[in-house]
């Protein structure tokens, strides 16, 4: 594999939207910090397509280009996803001249599907009854994506974020070094949600190489959850990508819907930032962990903001429509998206 460091971005056309991937801000959440424990959030929605998944998507596409697996105007990139990876992959691949087909569970919100269509993706919507040999949700989408792509390797390329080491490398080579630099090497505890395992293993591995005392805390969702991007590892097995470097995890936290949404609301009230549900889960785990230690520098990955979650937040009675609209208007730290 060709190593892609931040130099790749510098070498890229600076007018390109892809130049904006990475180098996201790390902010202190002062209303949650204390004298001895500092709480920082890495705001991954500053990536152009609005989430942490821009990094893995860019790395996976560039790696496929380097391996000459893609042909401009001919190749179709197909990926099973329920959200942010689809948005990032479609935005990035379309920008580079590739068609994209996203295989997505039909129950995913219309907001997300509309963004994907707007970015130019063809959607294949799967229901839970397509294949009796696999589980529900994204597992059905994975099965269909394999079925479509495997017999047609001349046309289709499936990056497969659940197995692709470029996902891990994107964080090992970009997000990890950014956090180390932004905290001037003072980070003591690192928190992130787990879906593919790319973020936690990439950043965790890098941070532990710099300082083996850094604690890495993995967050999974409760069963039957509403926390997009996270998985529960009793409902679904750990992805191959995660299993390769699982030993980097020191501790686990299981986030409930209730506590995560409560934290979304608290972050809005205390910091005036409208975050996504998984950021609430990360915040809940940091607040739980804070009880166990005397001092430290906590860093949590805030994977996306709350702009895609209006219907979810209203449905969960987190905000009224008026409150949501007001929060969206007044929220700080929400840069324009590329779509």
């Amino acid at each position: 594999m060709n190593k892609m460091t931040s130099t790749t971005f510098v070498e890229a056309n600076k007018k390109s939207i892809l130049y904006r991937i990475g180098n996201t801000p790390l902010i202190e959440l002062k209303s949650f910090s204390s004298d001895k424990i500092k709480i920082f959030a890495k705001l991954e929605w500053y990536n152009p397509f609005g989430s942490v998944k821009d990094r893995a998507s860019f790395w996976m596409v560039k790696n496929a280009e380097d391996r000459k697996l893609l042909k401009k105007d001919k190749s179709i990139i197909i990926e099973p996803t329920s959200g942010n990876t689809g948005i990032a992959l479609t935005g990035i691949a379309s920008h580079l001249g590739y068609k994209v087909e996203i295989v997505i569970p039909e129950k995913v919100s219309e907001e997300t599907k509309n963004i994907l269509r707007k970015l130019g993706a063809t959607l294949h919507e799967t229901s839970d009854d397509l294949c009796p040999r696999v589980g529900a949700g994204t597992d059905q989408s994975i099965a269909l994506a394999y079925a479509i792509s495997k017999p047609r390797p001349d046309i289709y390329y499936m990056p497969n974020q659940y197995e692709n080491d470029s996902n891990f490398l994107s964080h090992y080579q970009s997000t990890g070094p950014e956090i180390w630099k932004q905290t001037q090497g003072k980070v003591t505890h690192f928190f992130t949600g787990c879906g593919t395992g790319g973020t936690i293993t990439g950043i965790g591995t890098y941070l532990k190489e710099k300082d083996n005392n850094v604690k890495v805390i993995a967050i999974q969702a409760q069963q039957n959850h509403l926390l997009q991007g996270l998985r529960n590892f009793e409902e679904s097995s750990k992805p191959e990508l995660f299993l390769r470097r699982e030993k980097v995890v020191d501790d686990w936290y299981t986030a409930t819907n209730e506590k995560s949404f409560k934290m979304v609301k608290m972050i809005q009230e205390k910091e005036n930032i409208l975050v996504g549900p998984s950021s609430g889960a990360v915040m809940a785990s940091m607040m739980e962990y804070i009880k166990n230690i005397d001092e430290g520098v906590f860093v949590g990955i805030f994977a996306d903001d709350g702009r895609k979650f209006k219907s979810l937040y209203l449905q969960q009675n987190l905000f009224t429509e008026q409150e949501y609209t007001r929060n969206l208007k007044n929220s700080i730290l929400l840069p324009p998206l590329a779509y």
Partner: protein
Amino acid sequence: MSSGSNDNSKPDLKTIDVRGLYCPEPVFRTKIEIEKMIKGETLRIVSDDPDSEEDISRWVNRNGHELVSLNKNNADLEFTIKKAK
């Protein structure tokens, strides 16, 4: 794969040929075609994936449609499905 083409032997029957495709794609193509049809119309599906015998039959029953017939011709499975709702 041809989709929505008329078969010469049964000119009135809408047919999809999903031979060469693996499950769950035959079920997925069936689902898409059925969704485009109106109640009472009939669809013929030709598949050579052995798993589709169970998967398509099961999907048809679960979704309340009618499996009018399932014929086997060497490796080919020929389903005739009536959209019932």
